Structures are given as structure tokens and as C-alpha cells.
């Protein structure tokens, strides 16, 4: 039953080219073109290359992944998530779907497909950041190296998972907002606002040592902390207990918001979607 709902949702998304492009492909493409354009600008206009003799591929990927759930990327991810999660309110199509599957399955399937799309968005981010690094090296005549700091595939995979999890906390919030507001615009505005506030709080509270439960309550802070733990040399100087708390907080946010969205949707009257 959930499998049916996921298949249907995936089928829909694959035919919604506008959402696929703007929601899940645009931000990585912008990153790619800005990077290559920057290298071309430095070489042809400024006529001075970026400092350094080498291009660190692993470093480039980690940098791209840490920006994978930034406010800029979140804007486009939330446009995509809003189209998936609130589209049936906008098009008044819940009446077609709710008699065919259970409400938890319908909303759960939407979140799973948003998760899949975010995953492919991050894969695209990694591929395009590698491509931009290689092209940039060619433009500026630098040597390409795999990793300058001994960063391996394990660290990259870790950063990938943390960024995905961070984006999924936002997607879960998007699901709640979609059900409550019944509006795609509502989802984008609220989730973008939440991401923006998190960025500010994370940088302000993060600078205040030691960490308190308040700083740990911020998903973006936890994600930054976890990314540093999995990808920085010597775990960025972090204790595994601290990283464990950060991981639990991220998982708890995603689980609580998902459960909240499903409970709200389960009780919602669909008089006019």
C-alpha cells in the first residue's frame, strides 16, 4: 500500500518537469555555472588565478555538500517540496487520491519522494562540484589532487548523509506547513524563514561556548556540528558524545515533524482542498 503510494508519487514527480528543474536541479546548476564562470572571469578579466597550485577534489565536494542545505539551496528545495507536499491542495486533487490509499501512506509517500529528490539533488551537487573543480583546474592550469587533507569516501558519504538529514528536517517542517496552510507559497515562506532564522541563531549561539540545550535544539547547528565531526580531520576536535546528541536531535526533529504532519492530515477535513 505504501509502495503503491510511493510509485504513484514518483510517477507524478517524473512528469512534473518544472518542479524537477526548479526544485531539485537549479541550485546545483547555479553552483556549477558560478564556479566555472568565476574561474573564467579570473583568467580572462582579472587575469590572475585563484591562490594555490592545486585543486582539492574532496575539499570541493565537502564544500558543496555543506552548502547543500544552505538558505540559498533550501529556497529551491522548498519550492520542490512545496509542489509535492501542497500540490494536491493547490490543484484540489486530494479528492482523487484519498479514496485510493490511506492518508498516512499518501503523505508518507510524498515525504519519501521528497527525500529521494533531495538525495538526487545532492548527488547532482556532488557531480557538478567535481565537474566544476576539474574544469576550473583546466582553466587555471592547476594540478588536480584527490584530497589534500586525507579526506576519503567515508567522510564524503558522512557529510552527504548529514546534509540529507538536515534537508529532511526542513522537508518534514514543509509537510506540517503544507497541511496546516494548504498553500505552496506558505510552505516556501515559512520553511525559508525557519532556515534563515536557524542560520542566524546557529552562528550567534554557536559562537557562545559551552553549548547548551538551546544551541542543540537548532537543526542547522547540529548539522554543522555533525558535518565537522564526520568530515574534518580528527573529528574537528569534537567528542563522539556531542556528535551523537546532534544526530539524535536531527533525527528527533525529522521524526516529530513527520508524525505531526501525518496526525494533522489524518484529522483534516477536505471540504475544499
Amino acid at each position, binding site marked *: *500500500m505504501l509502495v*503503491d*503510494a510511493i*510509485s*504513484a508519487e514518483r*510517477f*507524478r514527480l517524473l*512528469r*512534473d*518537469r*518544472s518542479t524537477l528543474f526548479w526544485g531539485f536541479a537549479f541550485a546545483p546548476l547555479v553552483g556549477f555555472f558560478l564556479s566555472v564562470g568565476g574561474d573564467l572571469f579570473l583568467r580572462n578579466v582579472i587575469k590572475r588565478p585563484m591562490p594555490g597550485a592545486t585543486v582539492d577534489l574532496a575539499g570541493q565536494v565537502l564544500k558543496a555538500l555543506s552548502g547543500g542545505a544552505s538558505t540559498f539551496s533550501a529556497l529551491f528545495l522548498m519550492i520542490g517540496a512545496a509542489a509535492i507536499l501542497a*500540490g494536491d491542495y493547490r*490543484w*484540489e*486533487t*486530494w*479528492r*482523487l*487520491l*484519498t*479514496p*485510493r*490509499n*490511506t492518508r498516512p501512506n499518501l503523505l508518507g509517500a510524498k515525504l519519501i519522494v521528497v527525500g529521494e529528490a533531495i538525495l538526487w539533488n545532492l548527488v547532482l551537487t556532488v557531480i557538478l562540484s567535481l565537474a566544476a573543480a576539474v574544469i576550473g583546474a583546466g582553466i587555471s592550469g592547476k594540478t588536480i589532487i584527490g584530497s589534500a587533507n586525507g579526506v576519503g569516501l567515508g567522510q564524503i558519504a558522512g557529510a552527504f548523509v548529514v546534509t540529507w538529514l538536515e534537508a529532511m528536517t526542513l522537508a518534514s517542517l514543509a509537510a506540517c506547513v503544507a497541511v496546516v496552510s494548504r498553500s505552496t507559497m506558505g510552505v516556501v515562506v515559512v520553511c525559508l524563514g525557519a532556515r534563515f532564522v536557524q542560520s542566524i541563531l546557529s552562528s550567534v549561539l554557536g559562537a557562545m561556548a559551552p553549548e547548551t540545550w538551546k544551541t542543540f535544539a537548532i537543526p542547522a547547528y547540529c548539522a554543522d556540528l555533525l558535518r565537522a565531526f564526520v568530515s574534518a580531520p580528527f573529528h574537528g576536535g569534537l567528542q563522539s558524545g556531542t556528535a551523537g546528541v546532534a544526530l539524535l536531535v536531527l533525527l528527533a526533529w525529522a521524526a516529530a515533524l513527520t508524525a505531526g504532519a501525518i496526525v494533522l492530515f489524518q*484529522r483534516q*477535513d*477536505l*471540504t475544499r482542498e
Partner: protein
Amino acid sequence: MTIALEATALTKTYGSVRALDDFSLSIPAGGVFGVLGPNGAGKSTLFRIALGLVRPTSGSARLFGAPAGDITALRKVGAMIETPRYPPYLSARDALSMLALESGAKNADIGGWLERVGLSDAADRPTNGFSVGMKQRLGLAAAFFTKPELVILDEPTSGMDPAGIQEIRALIVDLAKREGVTVILASHQLDEVKRVCDRVAILSKGKIAAEGAVDALTASQARLRLVATPVAQVLALLGDKGKADGDDAVLADIPRGETPALIKALVEAGVEITEARWRDADLEGVYLKTLDQTGAI
């Protein structure tokens, strides 16, 4: 006897508005059941509750014995509620494919149904360019293509041209009779209801105002039409049970069993009777009279 849809003491309020008010109805499986009523009578609310789109304020609705919204029962049901809408980026074929996936009906005959509702030529066009009639046709295909046991249709032919109406009407009757699908149909087109429905319920202000077989309902409001002179004398004898029908006739609202006594009394009073004939009311008459009695019009 299997009950397809059963509502028991169903009440639904939206703020201060009572869309359904202690509403009870039992619709047996088999045949075509019509639900009539003016706008706001509670037809769509009843259907939305049955399909699990809306929760009742109190009371209960059951589909094939299972609580409304139960997915096992809902998978036996196809529905078209109000003007159907579709994600605009999907073609007609994609919309049905998506719904088939959602229902787990992977072997549904999508092409066959698109042909049956006359949308073969437009099957691969995005639905956002469809006319209301085309959307209705696609909605009908969506309601029927998973081979349900019960189909709920809310105004299935609104927005269609006369030829389309006739086509869809024939399709509904065909499915109900040949494939044993139970159809519950809400419509404002009384002619359509009379042609396709075996039984009807008339809703008014969230309650059942009348219910029964179409023939029985029209017969129950039959009138004796007397062509007689002088008409004034007939009207005087009948009192408030008589009503003039043109210059030379009177409609008498009396039980059939009282016909001989009435005719005898009229003859004894010197009235010349040219013709006396029982005339069934048409569905429109029954409908309007029922609504009048409930104060809905």
C-alpha cells in the same frame, strides 16, 4: 441483502451551518440510486463523508459494512465528486496511470476506458487544456476503471453537451445492469435521474425529505384528473383537495379508494363528467412538492 452505503444519525456542521442533520439512509447494493436536492441540501457532504474526505460531527457512515474512510472498503468504490480536477502537467493517460498506481490496480485497462469515454484522441494531451466536459469524462473513467463495486457520481454530466449526456447516461445504465456495479448518482437533472435511477432520495436541509422507488414516489403523488362541468361545483365539493387544471378540468388529491364515492357524489350533485383518469406525478412535481413541504423553496 448487502448494504452499499449506510448513514446512521449522521450530522455534519460547518460553523453554524448544518450540512447534514441527524441523517439516516440505507442504500442497498445493485442498481442506480439517485440523490436529489437543491444546492446545500447535503449531497456532497454525504459523499465526502462516505469517501473519508470529511469527518462527521456525529453519527456514522458505513461502506459495505466498514466504517467510512476504511481503505479496504474504499478500494471497492470509484467516485467523482463535483467537477474533477487533475494535476495540470499530467495527460489524461498519465492521470489514470497515476491513479492506477495509487490504487494498486496495475492491470487497469486505461486505454480501453479512455476510448469508452471518448478521450482516445486527447489521451496524451495535458489536462489543463481540457474543457469541463472532457474533465467530466476523464473523471468518469477514473471512477470506473479500477472495476469498483460501487460508484459515487456527483453531477456526472454537468458541463457536457446533449450527445455526451446521452452517451454517459447509457454508460452508467450499462455498467449498473451488465456488470452489477451499484451507482449512487447526485444530479440536478431530474430527467436524467428518472431515466437511469431505480430509487431516489430527496434531501432537504440536511435531512431525507422523501425516499423510495421512482415509480412508487411518482404514484404516491398521483392525482385524479376530472374533466367536468361545471368546474366550480367540483371545486366546491372537493374543498382544499381540489385544484383547477385549465378551464374544464380539476385535479383531485384523494386516495384511489375514494374514486367511486367521489364520482357518485359528483353525479348526484348534477355534475357532468366527461373524463376521469388517474395521472402519476412526474419526478419534477414530486421533487418540487417535497421541497415545498420542507420549506426549502
